[in-house]
C-alpha cells in the first residue's frame, strides 16, 4: 500500500470509520497473528491477543501521531501484549512445531513453506529434522534474541523497524539478531544428546 493511501486510511480510522478499521485488520492481521502465534505458542491465545490488539488500536488511534510508522506501532503493541501474556502465564511459551501436520493444515500453507524442494521422502525427512532442530534452538534462545528473530522472519520487518519496535538502537537489534542466529547455529550443529 502506498504511503498516501495508508495515511488516508489511518485518518479515516481516526475519524471512527468502521470500514477503515476493517481495511487495517485485513492489511495487518496475518502478519500480526503470525508473530503472536510464534510468540505465545498458542493459536487460541494469539487470536485473543490479536483481538485485544485491535481494540487497543481503536482506543489509542485518535491520539496516535502517524509519521509513516503504523506498522512499527502495531508490532510494538503486539510485542507488548505478547510479553505481558508470557509474564501472566509465567511460563516459557511452548514453541509450535515448525512443520507439523496440524500447523500446516490449521495455519494454512504459504509460499515460504513451499519454497524448498520437498518432493522426495528423504528431502522431506531431512527438512523435518532441520526444522525440529531449529525449533528447539529457537525455544532455547533468550527472549530478546528470539523476539528479534521472530520479528525479522515471521513478520518481515527491517532491522530499523525492529529497533523502533523494541525501543533499542539499531546496533542493539543487529547485535541481538547476530547473537541469536549464532547461538542458533551452535545449537543446531551440536550433537543431539537425546
Amino acid at each position, binding site marked *: 500500500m502506498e504511503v498516501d493511501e495508508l495515511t488516508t486510511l489511518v485518518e479515516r480510522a481516526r475519524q471512527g470509520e468502521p470500514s477503515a*478499521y476493517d481495511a487495517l485488520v485485513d492489511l495487518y492481521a496475518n502478519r500480526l497473528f503470525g508473530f503472536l502465534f510464534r510468540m505465545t505458542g498458542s493459536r487460541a491465545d494469539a487470536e485473543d491477543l490479536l483481538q485485544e490488539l485491535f481494540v487497543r488500536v481503536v482506543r489509542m488511534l485518535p491520539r*496516535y501521531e502517524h509519521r509513516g510508522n503504523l506498522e512499527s506501532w502495531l508490532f510494538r503493541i503486539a510485542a507488548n501484549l505478547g510479553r505481558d501474556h508470557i509474564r501472566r502465564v509465567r511460563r516459557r511459551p511452548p514453541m509450535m512445531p515448525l512443520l507439523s501436520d496440524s500447523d500446516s493444515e490449521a*495455519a494454512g500453507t504459504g509460499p515460504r513453506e513451499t519454497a524448498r524442494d520437498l518432493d522426495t521422502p528423504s528431502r522431506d525427512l531431512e527438512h523435518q529434522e532441520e526444522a525440529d532442530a531449529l525449533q528447539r534452538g529457537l525455544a532455547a534462545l533468550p527472549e530478546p534474541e528470539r523476539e528479534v528473530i521472530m520479528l525479522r*522472519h515471521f513478520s518481515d520487518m527491517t532491522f530499523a523497524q525492529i529497533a523502533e519496535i523494541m525501543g533499542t538502537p539499531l546496533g542493539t537489534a543487529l547485535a541481538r539478531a547476530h547473537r541469536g542466529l549464532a547461538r542458533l547455529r551452535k545449537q543446531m550443529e551440536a550433537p543431539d544428546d537425546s
Partner: protein
Amino acid sequence: MTPDERERMADIERDEQWLRDHAPGTPGPGSLEHLKLQVRIAADESRLQGIPTVWVDPACVARVKRAVRDELAGRTAGAARSRFRRLLPLSIGGPLAAAAVVAIVVMVNRPTGPSAPQASYSALDALVEFAEESATDRADAMSLPNLDALEEEMLGFAWSPAAESGYDEAETETDRLYEKLRDELDSLKKPGTIMQAGEDYPWYAAGTFDLGSWSWPV
C-alpha cells in the same frame, strides 16, 4: 566445519574485507560494525528459510472486526466511564477506589433488620465484581505516576527502554494493588471489620472522596 560452511565463511570474510575498505568507520547506521553484523546475519538467516508462515483463521478476522465495531460503538459509554473516573480525586488505582466504594456503601447502608446482612453481602458481592472488572481494565483506571510513560509508549511517542521499564513497574504495581484489594475485600466481608476499613482510607473520612452524582446500582 563442512565444505559449505567453509565456503560461507570465506564469503563472509571477503565481504567484510570489502566493507573495511569502503564503509565509514564512524558509529551508527551504515557503519562498518553494523554492516559487518548484517553480512553475518544474512549468512545465518538462510537457515530460517522454509519455516512455515502461519495464517490467521478467517473466522478470527471476522471476530476481530466485530470487536472493533463493538469498541467503536461503545466509545460513548467508555467516555462516560472515564468521566466518572475523573471524579475520583485519588492518586491510587481504580481497584482501591472500588474498595472505598465498598466501605462507603457498607457504612451508609449498614444492615439493621434480621434479614439485612444477606442483602448487604449481596451488594458486597456486586462490588467485588465491580472491583475485579476495574482491575482487568486497569490500564484505563490507574493513575499511577508511570501510567503516563506507559501511555506515551503505547502511543508511539516514546520508544525508550525507560518507558518499557515504566510499563513493567505499572504492571507490577497494579498486580500488587489488585492482590491487596482482594485481601481487603475478603476482610470486609467479615462482620466487625467494616469500620476498620473505613479508617484505612482517611481521604474518605476527610471528605476528599467525591462520588458526584454516581450511585452504585444495588
